[in-house]
Each structure stands twice: as C-alpha cells, then as structure tokens.
C-alpha cells in the first residue's frame, strides 16, 4: 500500500514558491478582500478575532522558541528535535486523558515529566557520548533524533489526528463581538506562568545563574566548579519539558498528529531567529508576532498562504536585520533577561 502523505515542510515550501510567483494574483485578492468590506464594527471584531487566533498560535511558537534558545545558549546548536517534543507532549496527553481517563492536572504533570525524561535521554545517549562534538555534527544528530521520534510516534499513535477535550469548557466566550475559547485563556496564562518561572529560574536560583555563566563563558564556568556537561543535560531537560507543555496546551485546539513536529519546529525556530537567537524575551515577542501575522494573513488573504506569509515576513526582516528584531548589540544586555 502506498500512502500519499502531506509533508508539512514540503507543503509550506511549495506555498512559499507559489506565493512568490503569483504575487500579482495575491495582490488582487488582498485588494478585493479589503475593499469588499465596509469598515464597520464587524471589521473590528474580525481583527480582534484574528488577533486571538494569532496570539494563541503565537504562544506555542514562543514556547518552542524558548526551547531552541535554551539549548542554543548551552551548546551553540539548534535542536531540530524541538518540534517533536511538542508533538510527543500532545500525543501523550491525548492518551493519558482520553484513553486512560486521568484527570487533566495529573496527566499534565506525567506528560511533562515523561517528555523531560526523553530530553534527558536524548542528551545522555546521543549528544553526550560524541567524542569530538562540533556544532555541525551535533545538529545532524538532532535531525536524526527528530526522525527517530517521529517514526516512533507514528508506530505508537498511528497517522490519524488525535482529539483531546478542552481543559475547561469548550464553549466560546463573547468579547467585543469576537469569540474566545477558554482554552486560549489557558494557553496565554500558562505562557505567562512559564515566562515568570523562566525569569525567576535564571535570575534568582543558583542553578539558573550557573547555566547563564556556562552559556557566557564555558571555561571560566568550569573553573568556578560548574559541571558543564550537567548544564547541557539540564538545558535539554528544560527545553523538552517546555516543548511538552506547548504540545499539551495546543492539542485541544489543533488536534495533534505525529507529523506536526517539523512545521511547529520551523515556526518556533523562526520565532527564535526573529527575536535574536539566544534571546528568550525577544523570542516570546517574535513568536506572538508571527502567530498574529499568520492569523491576519489567513483571515484577509487566504488560509492557504498562511504559513508562507509568516515565513516571507521572517525572511524580509532578516534581510534588513540579520541579527533579528532584538538581537542588536544594545539588546545584548537584555539577552539573559
């Protein structure tokens, strides 16, 4: 039997090309969409609606981006398995809540712990044993790990999309003419909670300070008695845990399947680059920005072009500011929060 499957990466690349070649068509469509509507109250509530959608997706990109940054800061590599942490988090949560019928808080904790262990195992068995770790070698290893995790996810959970019940009610709330899902509020709340935890961890705990020290100057950190290998392991653990949380909170809305990791990873990576690689505060802003732009693009242009438009904007910004929006030397101070 032959499966014809949609690979999200190829799809988005394809759309990217299409949107470049068919720009005149696209422009016409934009004009039609904008002029076809009177500027009424409904337009405003539309915009509000798209903003909600965008912020909700953007939070997930922001969480993925924080994960990228943590590992980048500790090792200088991009972990391409970051998207798979998100997927495993989502799928595991589906199994625990829908099949095993565990209460959501318990399933949340178990899933996060499980994926954190996957992150630790990844570092211990694939990154740590490398004799001469060069950046390129390690990055290729992360690609291999992402393929392995994706394959394993397909074996365990199959190719279907999985549904999960919302954290609280699935009924929409009315907000100035726009509707908002309670799940969206959960997502925003959890993002804010994680950001607060992140700031606390890196500024007010000794372990966090040691991780920062290790990122800034590894030799001096070792001299101060910091076990740099342990810090690398910790960065994998934390970024896997954060990835899992992203997967858990988004699954009720987008329905998770095994192949979503690549696209989530690319958007998260985009957010990390746009925010200035290594700068997590920038990544959060950039993540939400990408999500909102995407949602506006989907609403006013076409949902087909949604992914492409976010990535085109990313490219345009990088042509002008290669260091990302917040990656300037001035923002270096902001870098570690």
């Amino acid at each position, binding site marked *: 039997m032959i499966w014809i499957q949609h690979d999200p990466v190829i799809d988005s690349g394809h759309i990217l090309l299409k949107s470049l070649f068919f720009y005149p068509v696209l422009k016409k469509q934009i004009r039609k969409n904008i002029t076809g509507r009177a500027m009424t109250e409904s337009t405003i509530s539309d915009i509000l609606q798209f903003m909600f959608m965008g912020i909700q997706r953007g939070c997930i990109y922001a969480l993925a981006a924080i994960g990228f940054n943590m590992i980048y800061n500790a090792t200088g590599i991009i972990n391409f398995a970051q998207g798979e942490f998100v997927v495993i988090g989502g799928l595991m949560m589906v199994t625990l809540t829908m099949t095993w019928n565990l209460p959501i808080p318990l399933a949340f904790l178990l899933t996060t712990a499980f994926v954190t262990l996957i992150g630790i195992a990844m570092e211990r068995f694939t990154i740590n044993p490398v004799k001469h770790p060069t950046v390129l070698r390690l990055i290729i290893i992360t690609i291999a790990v992402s393929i392995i995790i994706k394959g394993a996810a397909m074996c365990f959970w199959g190719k279907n999309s999985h549904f999960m019940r919302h954290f609280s009610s699935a009924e929409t709330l009315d907000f100035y003419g726009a509707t908002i899902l309670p799940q969206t509020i959960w997502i925003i709340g959890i993002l804010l909670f994680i950001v607060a935890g992140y700031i606390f961890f890196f500024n007010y705990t000794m372990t966090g300070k040691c991780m920062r*020290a290790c990122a800034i100057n590894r*030799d001096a950190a070792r001299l*101060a008695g910091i076990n740099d290998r342990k810090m690398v392991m910790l960065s994998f653990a934390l970024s896997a845990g954060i990835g899992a949380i992203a997967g858990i909170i988004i699954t009720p809305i987008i329905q998770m399947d095994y192949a979503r990791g690549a696209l989530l990873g690319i958007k998260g990576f985009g957010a990390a680059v746009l925010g200035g690689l290594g700068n997590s505060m920038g990544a959060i802003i950039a993540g939400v920005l990408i999500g909102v732009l995407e949602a506006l693009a989907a609403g006013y242009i076409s949902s087909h072009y949604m992914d492409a438009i976010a990535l085109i904007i990313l490219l345009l910004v990088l042509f002008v500011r290669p260091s990302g929006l917040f990656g300037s030397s001035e923002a*270096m101070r902001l870098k570690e929060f």
Partner: protein
Amino acid sequence: MQTNILKLDCLRKTFGGVVAVDDLSLSFNKGEVTSLIGPNGAGKTTVFNLITGFLKPTSGKINFNDTELNHKKPHVIAAMGIGRTFQNVQVFSNMTVLENVMVGRHLRSRSGMFFSSILPPMLRGEEKRIRSSAKERLALLGLDQYADVPAGSLPLGNQRMLEIARALALEPTLLFLDEPASGLNARETVVMGRLIQKIKSMNITVVLVEHDMELVMDISDKVAVINFGKLIAEGTPNEVQLNPDVINAYLGT
C-alpha cells in the same frame, strides 16, 4: 619543615611533535608564594592548564595533597580547592559583578545545587547566604561599589580583581594567577602585589606566572624558571637572579 601542597612528577605534554612541557618535576610549598617565570612560550600557561584539568598530560603525575589529579575534570579539580585566573580575563560579561562571584561561590553552598533549585523556601535562604558571602569577597577586593554593574563594563584592572574575587569565592587552598599584572599600570600593579600578599596571609598557597620581575622578586618566597618546558633554576628570588642559566635564558648568548 615545609610541606608540599602540590607536586609535579616528570610531567610531560606534547602537541604533535612539539614538547611544551618536558619532564618537569616541581613542588610547591604550602602557604608560600611561588612564581613560575620564563621567556614567552616556555610552557608556563600549559603547566597551569595541565594542573587545572584543561589539558591532559601526556605522561607524568600531578599530586595535590597526595591525591592524583591526572584524569580529573576541571570542575572536580575546582571543587577540591584549586582556584585559577586566566591570562586573558574571563569574566561572565553580561552578568553583574555580584552574580559573577556568586557563581564562584555555588560549590560551597550547603545543600546540593540541584536540590536548592527545586525546594524554593530552602533556596531563598541559601541564595541569601551565598549573596552575603559574595559581597564580603567584593569588599575584600574593593569592588563592592560595582556590585550591580555588568562585569563586562568594568575597566580591565577591575575585571582582573573580579576574576580573583570569583576564584577566592571558591575558598581555594591553592590559587593560580596567570599574569595578574599584565595590562595594569604601575599603581595598579602595586595594589595587585599587596593583594597577593593579603591572599597569602589568608593561608592560601599562591602560584604566580608573571613577567613583571619587580613584582615577582618582591612578593615571591620561591621562584622557578622554566625554558622550553624544562626547569632550569629554582630557589629564592636572590638565588635565581644570580643564576647564570637564568641570565642566559633571558638575555641569550
């Protein structure tokens, strides 16, 4: 009778065909200031790197208080009480001065570092203790007014002081200083000399690599001269200054 705190036994390090340290045997007396001098490229910094675990010796033995250091990692060696500064200042530039010293202090915190981060109430107390003892170190080196300034914005002389403060936070019994006076002006060098004597009076054994001969001869109890990785002379500052081999190595024939 002096006791040895550190003993190098036929220590050798080669990089390809280059012999950087050539069967060097040397011992360091407890509580003294020992200077390692020699022309550029003589292998002094390599010796430091071997002892602190940044390089692995090709052969030979390093004994610290009768424990062999040969295959230990830098962070383990640091935990055993060997502190060090670098020739090129290495501070955590975008952390504050105080945070730099706190990081150096973390090993001496009471609870394990990992557990202190998952148990919030304990951690608050622990963090406070580390903070206050870090402040003491800063005061000792006269850096207390810069506590909340990013370390990278300090002038070089103060960054060097900060590096020493961070090394002292580890509560070392043996401290390696790699060219502490390089890049300092005459007045700052005098301050550095006084500081090294103060460190000695805290019962810390100091090993110094330095090119400023005035400083070396002034504060050292013992001087060891290395050339091409080999020990060519050893003794008190006066003995070494009069040694013909040393004059030869420095001035050429």
